[in-house]
C-alpha cells in the first residue's frame, strides 16, 4: 500500500517500523473475515483493515488521537486472528502496539475511563491487591445491575460479574522455590515456570498441576525470586514505559536463573503472558543494555504445551473415555502460532478431541477486554459457547486463564486448563472440575467434528 | 402452423447482417413490424397483429468458426440445428444444455435453427446441473429495432466486460433484436450413459427420491418422473410410473456411480438400469415432451417451480396428465380443452414462486390468453422500459411476450 511519510517522520525508528509494516498491506480485505469485531459490528472501521487505515492516516498526518480512532482501536481485542489470515505478512500486532502508545501519549481519556484503566493496572498485576479486590467484590456483586444502567460504569458491572466466588490463597506453588524431579535418573530438564499475577489468585491449581506433571516427567521446576507481572496488561494499554520496566525486571529475574543453573525453557501456562514474553526481544530491541538478554529470554519462552511436546511422554496412566472440546486461545493460536501441540498432547493422552466451529474467533476475554468492552465481549462469549456446545463435549480445555473464566461464565460444561487433563492422564489426581461430570452414553447420531491436524 | 402463415405477409430474407440492418431504414416497408422467423418450429407467444412483414434468418446460415480444442462454436443465427449437431458429432462434442426440439409436441414442420434455440432459451433435462442455453451462450451479434448492429459478449468462457446483454437476448423471443450470429460453449461428448429406473413411486415419493439422488456425489444430470400415463408413451415402459436418474461419463466411472446410487436409494423399491442407446432415447423423449406428442392441439403448459413444489402443484390442480423433469421442478401439463390459465397460475402462486408458459395452444387461444406468465407490476414496467431501449418503434415481434 502506498504510504506518505516525510523523511523527518521516518527518522523516528518506531515510525519507520510502522511504515514498513504498512507497506506490506495490499488492502485485500482478507483480515476482515476473521476479525471478531468486524463479524460482530459489521463496520470496516472495526476491522483490521479499517484500523490499519485509521492508524496510517493518523501517523502520516502526525495527528493526535481523537475519540473516533480511540473507539475503534479500543475495540480491537488484539486476538491477532488477522495475522493468521493475512497472506501479505502484515505485522498488525506491532502496528497496533505502536498506535496504542501514540494514543496513550496524545489522547486524554474521559475521567471514568481513566479511573477504570488505572484501577485495573494497579490491581490485576498484583496478586495481593487482586486477592483483596476479589474478596471485596462479593459485596459489590448485587450492584452490578445498577452499574449497567450507566454506560460509563458498565465495565464496573462486568468486573463484578466476572469476579469468582472464591479465591485461591497463597501456597508453596505460588512462592519462590525449586521443585525437584521425582525420577532417580538424570533429570530431563530444568525450567522456570512463570508464577503469574492474576492466574494464581483465580486458579492456583494450574501451576500446582504443572509442577507436579513436570516433576513426574523428571523435570526440575524453579519459581524464581523477584517475579512480578510480565507487563502484558499495561503493554496493551499502550503504557510503553511501564510495560518496558516490567519486561526489564522479568528479563533480570530469568537472566539470573539462566546464568545460575541454566534453563531449558521458561514455561508459561497463561498464553496471554506468553505472547508478551515472547515479544520482549522486540519490545527492548532499542535498549542497548537489554536487547540481547531480552532476545534470549524470548527465545526460551515456551507455552507449557510446546514444552511438553519436546519431552518423551510415558504411556498414559488412565483411559479417560472423555470428549474434550479444545478451545484454542487467540494468544496461543494467533499470537504464538501454537495450534496443534495442545490437541496432539490431549489425543496422545487418550482423549477424544473436537475442534469447535469458528475456532479462529476470540471468546471475548482478551485480557481486560471483557471488562472494558462488556457488550462486544458478551456477544463473542455467546457465539463461542454456542459453537463449543455444538460439538457436545464432556469437558472444555483451554490454555489461558482469561478464556477459562470467560467461557466458564457462559456454560455449565466443565472447563479447565489443558495441563490439568494431562496431569491426570499421566498419573496425577483427577481434576476437581470433573466432579460435576457424569459420563453419558455416547451420542452417535450427530456428525462428529474431529479435530484437524 | 406458424403465425406468419395465417395471411400472406412479405417474407424478407436478408443475406447478411448489413442487409438486416438496412431493413429498418427501408422506407418501402412502411415502418411495419417484423415477425422474426428461424425454422418456424416454435410458435409460442402472442401472435403479432397484421399488417407486418416476416423477417427470415434462412439466408443467415452457416458455421463461422468451430475449434473443438477451444470448446467454442460460432454460427450464424439461421444455421439449422441439424448442421450444427453434425459438425459437433464430427468433433466428438455436443451442446451441454440439450436443446429441445418442439416439432413433435407442436406438430411443426420446419428445420429448427440455432437462433430459435437461443431466442427461446430452449434447454433440456441437463439444465438441472449444467445450465440452460443462456449458460452456454458466450456472445451474440444482433440488429436492434433501430437497425444498429450490436456485438455483445465474446468467445471466451469467462467474461464480465460490461453489461451481460447476452443473457437478455437469450429467451427474448426476437423482441429485442434480430440475432445474426451466436457464439456458444460446447463440451466433449461423453463415453457412455446409464439411466437408473425406480419403479412405481408416487410423484411425492419420486420427488424425495430425486432430491436424495441429487444430494449424492454421483453427479446425476437428469432426474425425471413419469406417472403411469406418461410412462406408457415412452417405449421402454408400461403400466406404472417410473422415476429416471441419468449418469454420464467415462464407462468405469458411470458403473461405479450407478452402483453407488443404487445402494443409496435401496429403500425406494425396485430398480433397473437402462444403458447406452436405450438410455439416450429415454432422455430425448423426455426432452421433446414425447408423452404429449398426440397430434392434437390440446393445451400444454410448461411450468417451472422449485423442485419439491412440482408434485404439489399437480396435486393442487387435480390433473393426472402431467410429468416432471428437472428433479420435479419442470412440470409439463396437458389440459383437456380449456387451458384454464387462471387456475394454473393460481396454483403456481399457491406452491411458491415460479411461472407457467402456455406452450401449446391454438392461435386464437394465444391471442386471448397471456402465453407468458404475468409478472409483478414493477418487473413488468422495468421489462417494458428495457424492451423500448432495444426497440423504441415496436418493430420486433411486438407484443409477442405479452
Amino acid at each position, binding site marked *: *500500500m*502506498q504510504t506518505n511519510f516525510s523523511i523527518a517522520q521516518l527518522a523516528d525508528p518506531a515510525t519507520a517500523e510502522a511504515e514498513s509494516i504498512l*507497506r*506490506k498491506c*495490499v*488492502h485485500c480485505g482478507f483480515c476482515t*473475515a476473521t476479525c471478531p469485531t468486524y463479524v460482530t459490528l*459489521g*463496520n*470496516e*472501521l472495526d476491522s483490521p483493515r*479499517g484500523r490499519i487505515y*485509521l492508524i496510517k492516516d493518523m501517523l502520516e498526518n502526525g495527528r493526535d488521537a481523537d475519540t473516533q480512532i480511540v473507539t475503534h482501536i479500543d475495540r480491537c481485542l488484539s486476538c491477532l486472528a488477522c495475522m493468521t489470515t493475512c497472506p501479505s*505478512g502484515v505485522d498488525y500486532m506491532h502496528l497496533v502496539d505502536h498506535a496504542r502508545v501514540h494514543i496513550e501519549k496524545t489522547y486524554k481519556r474521559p475521567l471514568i475511563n481513566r479511573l477504570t484503566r488505572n484501577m485495573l493496572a494497579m490491581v490485576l498485576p498484583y496478586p495481593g491487591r487482586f486477592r483483596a479486590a476479589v474478596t471485596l467484590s462479593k459485596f459489590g456483586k448485587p450492584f452490578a445491575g445498577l452499574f449497567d444502567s450507566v454506560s460509563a460504569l458498565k465495565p464496573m458491572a462486568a468486573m463484578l460479574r466476572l469476579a469468582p466466588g472464591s479465591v485461591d490463597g497463597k501456597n508453596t506453588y505460588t512462592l519462590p522455590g525449586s521443585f525437584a524431579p521425582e525420577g532417580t535418573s538424570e533429570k530431563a530438564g530444568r525450567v522456570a515456570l512463570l508464577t503469574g499475577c492474576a492466574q494464581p489468585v483465580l486458579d492456583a491449581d494450574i501451576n500446582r498441576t504443572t509442577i507436579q506433571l513436570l516433576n513426574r516427567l523428571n523435570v526440575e521446576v524453579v519459581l524464581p525470586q523477584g517475579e512480578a507481572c510480565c507487563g502484558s496488561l499495561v503493554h496493551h494499554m499502550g503504557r510503553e514505559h511501564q510495560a518496558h520496566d516490567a519486561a526489564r525486571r522479568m528479563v533480570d529475574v530469568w537472566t539470573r536463573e539462566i546464568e545460575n543453573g541454566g534453563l531449558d525453557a521458561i514455561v508459561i501456562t497463561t498464553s496471554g503472558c506468553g505472547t508478551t514474553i515472547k515479544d520482549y526481544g522486540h519490545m527492548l530491541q532499542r535498549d542497548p543494555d537489554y536487547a540481547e538478554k531480552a532476545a534470549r529470554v524470548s527465545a526460551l519462552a515456551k507455552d507449557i504445551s510446546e514444552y511438553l511436546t519436546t519431552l518423551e511422554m510415558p504411556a498414559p496412566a488412565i483411559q479417560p473415555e472423555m470428549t474434550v472440546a479444545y478451545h484454542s486461545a487467540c494468544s496461543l493460536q494467533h499470537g504464538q502460532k501454537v495450534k496443534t501441540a495442545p490437541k496432539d498432547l490431549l489425543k496422545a493422552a487418550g482423549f477424544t478431541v473436537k475442534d469447535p466451529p469458528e475456532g479462529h474467533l476470540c471468546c471475548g476475554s482478551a485480557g481486560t477486554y471483557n471488562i472494558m468492552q462488556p457488550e462486544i465481549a458478551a456477544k463473542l462469549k455467546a457465539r463461542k459457547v454456542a459453537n463449543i456446545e455444538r460439538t457436545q463435549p464432556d469437558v472444555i480445555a483451554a490454555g489461558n486463564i482469561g478464556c477459562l473464566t470467560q467461557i466458564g461464565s457462559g456454560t455449565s460444561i466443565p472447563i479447565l486448563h489443558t495441563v490439568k487433563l494431562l496431569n491426570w492422564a499421566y498419573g496425577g489426581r483427577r481434576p476437581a472440575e470433573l466432579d460435576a461430570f457424569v459420563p453419558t452414553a455416547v451420542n452417535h447420531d450427530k*456428525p462428529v467434528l474431529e479435530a484437524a491436524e | 402452423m406458424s403465425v406468419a402463415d395465417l395471411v400472406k405477409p412479405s417474407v424478407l430474407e436478408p443475406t447478411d447482417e448489413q442487409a438486416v440492418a438496412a431493413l429498418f431504414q427501408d422506407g418501402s416497408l412502411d415502418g411495419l413490424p417484423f415477425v422474426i422467423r428461424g425454422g418456424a418450429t416454435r410458435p409460442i407467444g402472442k401472435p403479432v397483429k397484421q399488417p407486418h412483414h416476416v423477417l427470415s434468418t434462412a439466408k443467415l446460415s452457416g458455421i463461422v468458426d468451430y475449434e473443438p480444442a*477451444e*470448446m467454442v462454436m460460432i454460427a450464424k443465427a439461421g444455421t439449422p440445428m441439424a448442421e450444427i449437431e453434425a459438425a459437433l458429432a464430427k468433433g466428438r462434442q455436443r451442446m451441454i444444455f440439450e436443446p429441445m426440439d418442439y416439432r413433435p409436441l407442436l406438430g411443426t414442420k420446419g428445420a429448427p435453427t440455432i437462433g430459435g434455440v437461443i431466442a427461446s432459451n430452449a*434447454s433440456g433435462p441437463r439444465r438441472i446441473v449444467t445450465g440452460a442455453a443462456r*449458460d452456454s451462450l458466450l456472445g451474440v451479434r444482433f440488429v*436492434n429495432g433501430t437497425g*444498429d*448492429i*450490436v*456485438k*455483445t459478449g465474446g468467445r*471466451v468462457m*469467462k*467474461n*464480465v*466486460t*460490461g*453489461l*451481460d*446483454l447476452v*443473457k*437478455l437476448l*437469450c*429467451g427474448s423471443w426476437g423482441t429485442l433484436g434480430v440475432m445474426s450470429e451466436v457464439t456458444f460453449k460446447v463440451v*466433449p*461428448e461423453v463415453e457412455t450413459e446409464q439411466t437408473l429406473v425406480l419403479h412405481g413411486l408416487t410423484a411425492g415419493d419420486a420427488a424425495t427420491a430425486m432430491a436424495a439422488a*441429487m444430494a449424492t*456425489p454421483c*453427479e446425476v444430470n437428469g432426474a425425471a418422473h413419469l406417472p403411469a400415463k406418461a410412462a406408457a408413451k415412452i417405449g421402454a415402459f408400461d403400466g406404472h410410473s417410473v422415476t429416471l436418474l441419468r449418469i454420464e461419463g*467415462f464407462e468405469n*466411472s458411470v458403473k461405479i*456411480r450407478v452402483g453407488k446410487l443404487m445402494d443409496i436409494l435401496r429403500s425406494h423399491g425396485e430398480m433397473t438400469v437402462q444403458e447406452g442407446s436405450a438410455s439416450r432415447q429415454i432422455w430425448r423423449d423426455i426432452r421433446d415432451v414425447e408423452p404429449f406428442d398426440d397430434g392434437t392441439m390440446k393445451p400444454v403448459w410448461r411450468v417451472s417451480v*422449485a423442485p419439491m*413444489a412440482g408434485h404439489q402443484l399437480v396435486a393442487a390442480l387435480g390433473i393426472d396428465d402431467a410429468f416432471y423433469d428437472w428433479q420435479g*421442478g*419442470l412440470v409439463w401439463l396437458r389440459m383437456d380443452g380449456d387451458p384454464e390459465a387462471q387456475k394454473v397460475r393460481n396454483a403456481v402462486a399457491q406452491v*411458491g414462486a415460479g*411461472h407457467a408458459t402456455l406452450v401449446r395452444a391454438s392461435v386464437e387461444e394465444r391471442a386471448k390468453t397471456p402465453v*407468458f*406468465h*404475468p409478472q409483478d407490476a414493477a418487473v*413488468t414496467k422495468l*421489462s417494458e422500459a428495457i424492451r423500448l*431501449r*432495444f426497440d423504441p418503434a415496436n418493430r420486433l415481434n411486438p407484443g409477442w*411476450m405479452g
Partner: protein
Amino acid sequence: MTGIAMPRPDAAVLSRRDEHISHLKTLLGPDGVVSDVNELRAFETDGFTAYRFVPMAVVLPQTTQEVSNVLRYLAEQKVPVVPRGAGTSLSGGAIPQEDAVIIGLSRMAQIMDINYQNRTLNVQAGATNLSISEAVSGEGFFYAPDPSSQLACSIGGNIAMNSGGAHCLKYGVTTNNLLGVTLVLIDGTVVELGGEALDSAGYDLLGIICGSEGQLGIMTEAVVRLVAKPEGARPVLFGFDTSEAAGACVAEIIGTGIVPVAIEFMDKPAIDICEAFAQAGYPMDVDALLIVEVEGSDAEMDDMLARIVEIANRHDVKVVKESQSATEAALIWKGRKSAFGATGRIADYICMDGTVPLGKLPYVLKETARIVNEYGLRVANVFHAGDGNMHPLILYDVNDPVEAEKAEACGMDLLKLCVDAGGCLTGEHGVGIEKRDLMLYQYSQTDLDQQMAVRDAFDPDWVMNPAKVFPYEARGNRQGASQPVDQAA
C-alpha cells in the same frame, strides 16, 4: 497513479452535505452513518488501492427496507451512490467519488434459509462467499464459485462482478449458480427476480443484474444453487521447464475431451511467492506449475489422472506430485488462493484479469513477458488456465511515481494484448474504474450505446456507481455522467 479520470464532485451535492447526513441519520440512526472525515478515509478505496477518493458519507443499513429508504432519498437528491460489499474489488468497483454516499452491506450478512431438497440457499448480500459453503458443508454441499478472495468477499459483490474462481471450469461462474435476487430499484421499489425455480418468466433480468457492477440497483438478498460435494478431490502438481510447455499441455488436456475441475497455472515468480507463504510443497526447480484438480471416487480420480499424466508426459513434464492428504490438498489451494496477497510480501502489484482463447495461451504468455520486460518491470503469472483467464501481476513500487506510471501503462498494454488475441478485458474482476477507459478497445460505440441504454432503463439519472464501467468519452450527453477531471491519487 493518475491515468484514470474521475468526475468532478458536484458542488451542489457537497454544499448540502450536512443536510444529507442528518437525514440519513434519521433513516438509520447515528450508528448507521459514518460521517467523520478521518473515519471516512478508511472507505476511500478497495482492493485496487492505486485510486482513492474519500466519500461524502458511508451508510450501513441492516434491512432491505432501510436500503430502500436510503436509496430512494439519495436518488431523489441526485446524490451518487456507491454500493460496497466487503471492499475486495481488484478493479475499483467499490471506490467512491467525493460527492458519493457508500451504501455498505456489511451488516446484512446472515444466511436466511437453506433448502437441501431444492438445493437452494437464501443469503443476505453482505455474507461472505465462504460462509455459504461452510454453512452447508456438514450436509455434503457447497457453493461452487470460489474466487480467491472467497474468505472475505461478499456474495453481493460476487454477483455484481459475476465472480468466477478456480473451479468454474466445471461448475461455472456466479451467473450459472445464481437463482434469484432481491433488488432495490433506484426509486426504492423492492423486486424479487428469480427464486427457487430454475428459470423465470419474461426477460432474464437476473442475467443482466449479474455482472452489472452496482449500476442497476442494490441487491440485498440472493438465492444461490447448492451443489453436492464430490466424493473426493485431489489437486495434482505438474511442473514444467517452460511456461509454453505448460500452456500447450493445458490446451491439449482440454482439447482431448478431459475437463478437470480446475487447471491453475503459476510461473516461477508466483511459485516462489506462494510457497513462501503457504509452504504447500510446490516444486521449486521448475519454471511453470499446473495445479490440476480431479474429483470423484478414488477409482475415478486414478483413471482421470492416468489420462492427464499421459498428456503431460508428451509435454515433457518434469514433476508430477499428488497431494497425499486433505491437509496437503488444503495447503496447495491455500497457496494458490493467497497468491495476490502474498505478493504483497515482496512488492506492490496490479493484477490483470484478461481472458484469452485457450489456443492463444502460449503466445499471450510469451508476449506478456516481452511487454513487461520492455517496461523494465517484473511479472508473476498465476491464473485459471483451464478457461484462459490470465492474471499477470505486475510488480512495482507504489511509492515510486515513475514506476507506478509505467506499471499502469504496462497493464493497459497487457489488456489490449488479450483483446487482440480474441479475448476480453476482464474475466471475473469486472471493469470498475480500472478497465473503464479501455472499453472502446473491445466494443464499438454502438455496442456500448446499447449497454448504456439498458442502464438508462434502470437508472436514468446515472446515480448508481456512475464513475464505473462506461468511458466518459462514450457517454454522450447523459445526465449524471458529468465531465471527468484528473484527480491526484
